[in-house]
């Protein structure tokens, strides 16, 4: 490890630990030095690390309210899991699965539409005003309508995520489909490619490069879509967990959910980034992330 890298890591660690310590203990000093500890750090709003960790163990069925450990595999863990239908693990699972479905559908539909309109001047001309109009609507504003139409089950979350993702992917694909190198198309034709073969072997792979560039933001967007959907009405999921904790005035519960979301979001982004790097392995390394 280089010296520079070591210094960076040390700083990062110091900031993280410093922040946690401040969060845990600073409120005790509020009365003495109010300018150093603003009202916002009232544990009623933001809880504190120790409470959040305890709440995590509780929501995750790892410890009973009395402080008895119920680790996975024990009878207590199984009982807790079956009793609470929106325990931390179930909530994470549903949010994650709905995010991935919304992402997959959004990417597929966005790619198909982008390819179709990007390769047809006529169609893009006709649909142009509608796409512009629809794109200017904040997608999240549609979430309540979607819940109304698709119910409070998983479908509405998937549709919300899909809507958030689809435009992002559509515009990237559209640009990509328009900028396919004419000489690549000519080369393929001269080597005997039919129209469909040109589409499949030149237009699609060359557009894919643009599509891949939109995947990392798309997966974060999908997660946002699902959470908002869960806020408005859901049977389970992390979003619902946040709303429940809020109703109980339980900051620690909300904070657990936020930490779980941060973890899920990081893992999803890292996974997609890895996928994107592999799919774009035919590009020089410095261009693989654009």
């Amino acid at each position, binding site marked *: 490890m280089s010296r520079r890298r070591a210094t960076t890591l040390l700083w990062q660690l110091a900031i993280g630990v410093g922040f946690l310590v401040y969060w845990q203990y600073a409120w005790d000093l509020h009365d003495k030095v109010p300018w150093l500890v603003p009202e916002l750090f009232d544990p009623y709003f933001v809880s504190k690390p120790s409470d959040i960790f305890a709440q995590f163990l509780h929501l995750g069925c790892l410890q009973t309210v009395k402080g008895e450990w119920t680790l996975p595999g024990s009878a207590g863990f199984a009982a807790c899991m079956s009793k609470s239908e929106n325990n931390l693990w179930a909530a994470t699972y549903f949010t994650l699965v709905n995010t991935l479905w919304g992402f997959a559908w959004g990417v597929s539909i966005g790619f198909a539409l982008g390819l179709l309109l990007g390769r047809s001047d006529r169609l893009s001309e006709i649909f142009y005003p509608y796409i512009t109009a629809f794109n200017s609507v904040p997608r999240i504003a549609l979430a309540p309508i979607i819940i109304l139409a698709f119910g409070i089950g998983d479908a509405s979350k998937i549709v919300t995520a899909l809507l958030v993702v689809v435009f992002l992917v559509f515009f990237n694909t559209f640009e990509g489909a328009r900028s396919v*190198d004419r*000489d690549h198309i*000519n080369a393929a034709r*001269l*080597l*005997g490619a039919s129209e469909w073969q040109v589409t499949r*072997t030149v237009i699609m792979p060359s557009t894919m490069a643009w599509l891949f560039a939109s995947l990392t933001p798309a997966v974060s967007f999908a997660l946002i879509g699902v959470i908002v959907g869960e806020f408005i009405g859901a049977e389970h999921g992390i979003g619902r967990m946040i709303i429940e904790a809020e109703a109980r005035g339980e900051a620690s519960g909300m904070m657990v959910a936020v930490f779980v979301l941060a973890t899920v979001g990081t893992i999803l982004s890292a996974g997609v980034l890895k996928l994107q790097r592999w799919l774009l392995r*035919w590009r020089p390394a410095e261009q693989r992330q654009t």
Partner: protein
Amino acid sequence: MSVAASRSRIDVKGLRKTFAAPNGGGGREVLAVDNASFTIGDGEFVALLGPSGCGKSTILNMVATLITPNGGAIAVDGQPVVPGRPMRQVGYVFQKDTLFPWRTVEDNIGYALELAKVPVEERRQRVAEAIRLAGLEGFAKFYPFSLSGGMRQRVSLMRTLITQPEILLMDEPFGALDTHTKLDMHSVLLSLWEKTRQTVLFVTHDLGEALTLSDRVILMSARPGRVKDDFRIDFPRPRNAVALRETPEYANLFQRIWHSLGEEFAKSHGAQEAS
């Protein structure tokens, strides 16, 4: 003459092409090719030589069905050429690098076979053979971005040659390469062609290249492109791309054509100054 007696493969008659003048140009048109006519016989290697902007690439692209002519006729093997409908027996090598960047060397070379649904086993053998012929052993799994310009152009050449085209159209394929790589490519092309003897129409502005490779040099005038002269190049084959350039015969012919070509370069230079 033996070549004249053999059947003609490419017939170009009274070919004409105009382009809209650049930057709007007020609806003016520029005459790029004017009444160009020539015939290329079976197995002939013909260089189409002229200053830049003389319309030689335009002629080639019209033969390749990439550009629609405004007048005249082109026939390949007696069949009239239809724009946008490439002919099966014709192969084309671009000046620009048109390798598919998302395909490895072997997948680029095997592309046409894949389109034609050649069985995997046969495809693998033919691609391996092509890689060997082009001296690209060990690079089969490389992506184009990691290859040098010369290597990319070899892959390009093999991607076209693997279809075994009877007629090969080449648009300044080595124009972007440095002198040494270019000479190297001449050797590769000569050794490949002297075995197979396809009919070749090779566009270039490099007289040395034209003399090294071809049986005939068709000299184009400056814009608008017309056929100005037609030289027969009788150097014995097989040729050595490097040694050939040191023979007195080469020097003689070079000088003769150079004079004629020089006049056209001067004209095209004058035209650029004037415009």
